[in-house]
């Protein structure tokens, strides 16, 4: 019974991890940018949800209507303003540039909203659903449902629309896509905006589960790197499987070893994967892009 409980809690949290990681892996797949801002965009989205709730009483699910376009816009702005100049350069350049933006965002949040821990206290936040002796946290359950819905929508978009196909084409072979009339900067801006919108949705969903503070993104960034590498950097399906796996590993190791050590388990797993199979468990080697 306890194992089942752990498994289900792990899958629930894993669904949210998957949602966070989808954006990271999409951005890497399309433009080969290792995005260290990803966690901070989650932080910004959580703050948006917090302020919408605190100032206007809008709960974080209705808030999605505002948060999705806002984070997508922010992502497009970051890409167009900064990363556009790094995309043709080496991995190192994009890593360092995104670390720089991450420092800027974290400290902007610190200046604007102080280092206080803030959380949304709506009545849903602490409720849990009981089902055949299993306790399931209501906000995580909703988050998981939304995560599945969003993932399905994303796959439908990527597989059945012109823009989605253009994004996939650009991630498979950038130059062939350009020759076919795909405008790379448009596609890159769009993919980055979608990536941040995905993490924005995750942030809004998590705002009623976790407290928010300026550096909250760092731990989620690390988790999503683990997820993404586990599933294969650039692979969307891999990110989903990786997310679920990390969720399960985390919930079981937190129970058996203790919650302070749970990170240790998935970090060691991460290092092991990097050493043994850096393309990830389910990924294939992505073609390197000449720069």
């Amino acid at each position, binding site marked *: 019974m306890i194992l089942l409980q752990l498994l289900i809690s792990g899958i629930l949290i894993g669904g949210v991890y998957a949602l966070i990681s989808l954006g990271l892996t999409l951005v890497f797949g399309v433009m080969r940018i290792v995005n260290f801002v990803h966690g901070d965009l989650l932080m910004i989205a959580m703050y948006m949800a917090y302020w919408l709730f605190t100032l206007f009483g809008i709960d974080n699910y209705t808030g999605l209507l505002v948060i999705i376009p806002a984070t997508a816009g922010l992502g497009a702005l970051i890409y167009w303003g900064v990363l556009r100049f790094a995309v043709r350069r080496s991995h190192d350049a994009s890593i*360092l540039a995104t670390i720089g933006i991450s420092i800027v965002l974290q400290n902007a949040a*610190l200046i604007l909203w102080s280092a206080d821990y803030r959380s949304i206290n709506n009545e849903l936040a602490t409720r849990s659903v009981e089902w055949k002796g299993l306790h399931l946290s209501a906000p995580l359950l909703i988050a998981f449902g939304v995560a599945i819905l969003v993932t399905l929508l994303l796959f439908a978009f990527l597989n059945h629309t012109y823009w989605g196909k253009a994004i996939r084409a650009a991630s498979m072979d950038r130059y062939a896509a350009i020759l076919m009339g795909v405008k790379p900067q448009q596609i890159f801006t769009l993919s980055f905006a979608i990536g941040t919108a995905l993490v924005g949705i995750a942030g809004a969903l998590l705002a009623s589960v976790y407290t928010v503070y300026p550096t909250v993104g760092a731990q989620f960034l*690390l988790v999503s790197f683990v997820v993404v*590498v586990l599933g294969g*950097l650039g692979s969307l399906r891999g990110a989903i499987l990786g997310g679920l796996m990390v969720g399960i590993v985390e919930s079981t190791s937190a129970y058996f070893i203790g919650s302070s050590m749970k*990170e*240790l388990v998935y970090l060691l797993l991460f*290092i092991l994967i990097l050493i043994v199979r850096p393309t990830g468990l389910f990924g294939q080697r992505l073609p390197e892009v000449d720069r």
Partner: protein
Amino acid sequence: MDVKQEVRKLTPTVRPRIIGYGSVALLTVVLPFLLQSELYYLDTLILALLWASAAGAWNLAGGYGGLLSLGHAAFFGIGAYASSLMYVKLEVSPWIGMAAGAILAGVLGLVTGMVTLRMKGPFFALTTIAITEVLMIVAVNWSDLTNGSKGVNIPYHPGFSNIAFDSKIPYYFLALAICLIPFFIARWLERSRYGYELMAVRDNEAAAQALGIDSVRVKVGILVISSAITAVAGAFYAQYITVIEPYHEFSFAVSVQMVLITMIGGLGTKWGPIFGSLIVTGMDTFLRDVLVGAQGGVQALLYGLMLVLVVLFIPEGLIPWMKRRFRLKNGGVHNG
């Protein structure tokens, strides 16, 4: 043409160099005595030298070797913890602790190098982050050894063998000495066979291997050297600040600090880390003076901004950039 004429022809170029280096050397020796009453600025200078040594050590692997490590805090923290734990728990002189830390970090560097050999692109950077994170968790949770998240306090017993002094001047010269280690190694790299091999591997690994260079030996070697020196800087940091905490010593911020300083000064140049550290640490002190009472975070925000701007628009760093500017202005050729 007699020899005297030759010498006279040489002097105009040789003399300014000697005068330049001489006055810089003289200034570095005299400066701490001039600042003896201005402890605040002397402190800034010592910290600048400390970060210059850590960044200089990072630069050996990151700049000359092209290994973008984002986890050098691991080696820094090992140095800090090794020297202070051996001193506090075993009453071993921090000098020995410093050496022990360097050896430990060198071993970790060796292991890291061996396991990351085949990694390309961002995977090396991610692995170094993960290793640092693991060490931080260990340092926090193994509290019997490390005092956990409380950190280690180093008791103050002045004396040469304890690396604890009444005056800041000995600290200054020690920091200067440590800072010169990576500097001279960098200078050696620029004119030795090993250095050429290293840079060849950095610039095109396949081509270097085709020429018969053992890229494994070259890359692992520089990582070991770099991590050992970083640990020395970490040990000095612990002795100077006298308090260490896992959340600081093993933090991502410390790793990034070394990268930032090197990037600003000039990646893969021997003066880069020193120059960059003077700018970054100097700016830190200056801003602290200017922004008294302002919200925390402004300085760090400016660091982030600086990192973005340097990476995107002056990727070679300030020193090479200014050199090129200077040369162009004097009608020299653009060779960058």
